[in-house]
């Protein structure tokens, strides 16, 4: 890569990081919503 190595590798690393963050955010949000629904339905069941 010569003198441009730092620029090129930074861009590729940043891209990989963003893809990982997008993947992680999608998974964590899904788990969070599922947990919220579980807790809510359990609370409703206990009330009844």
């Amino acid at each position, binding site marked *: 890569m010569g003198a441009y190595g730092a620029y090129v590798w930074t861009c590729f690393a940043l891209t990989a990081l963003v893809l990982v963050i997008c993947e992680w955010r999608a998974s964590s949000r899904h788990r969070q919503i*599922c947990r919220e629904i579980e807790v809510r339905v359990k609370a409703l069941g206990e009330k009844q």
Partner: protein
Amino acid sequence: MWKFLHKLASPPHFYGLAVRLIPWFAVPGFLLIAYGAYAGLFVAPPDYQQGDAFRIIYVHVPSAYLSVMAYMVMAVSAGIGLIWRMKLAHAVAAGAAPLGAWFTFLALATGSIWGRPMWGTWWEWGDPRLTSELVLLFLYFGYMALRGAIDDTAKADRASAVLALVGAVNVPIIHFSVEWWSSLHQGPTLFKEGGPAIDNAMLYPLLAMILGFTFVFGGLLLRRVRTEVLYRERRTRWVRELVFSAAGIK
């Protein structure tokens, strides 16, 4: 056709379909990106003017293309939701916004890093392509902030849809900015008269990256919309049954 669309708009049907489709987007997407990144970094020859710095094109162009495509998905879905009052369309728009914002950030960041050795500057305020892309990022932020500020989902859907549609005027500005005004940014490389202005050894990895990014975006969008559907339908019986069967609770 209408029957298919009507069925697709049904949340339980869409949820099941999304779960089945996600791997068909994710796996080819990551394989294409792996090939494109390897060929772009190690196989494609250096550019005669830019040397190895041109390799940034393999991440910059796909992210820039997706930043605009995600906005188009968002605006069209918001329009469909607004006109036909289809809740699923609003869920698609809500799912596309954060992804679009991430890809816009990536396009701006990689463009800025590429600009430093080529133009001698990280940023140029007078450049129409850079500025219109930055406006796109602010439109995504505005859309998400507006949705987050309104508690009522139906009202949030309508207000954010109007913003998404108004902001769509920025899409042709981004695309044609390099032709309409004098710009530091280079003109079109792929979609120009007489075919792509790039050698095949450089072109194929780029096409693989663009296709790979599109597949990955499709997979991520399906995942986000699936979650959005689950949240919106959280009071319905099918969602309760689904969540409890997934958790192994009877």
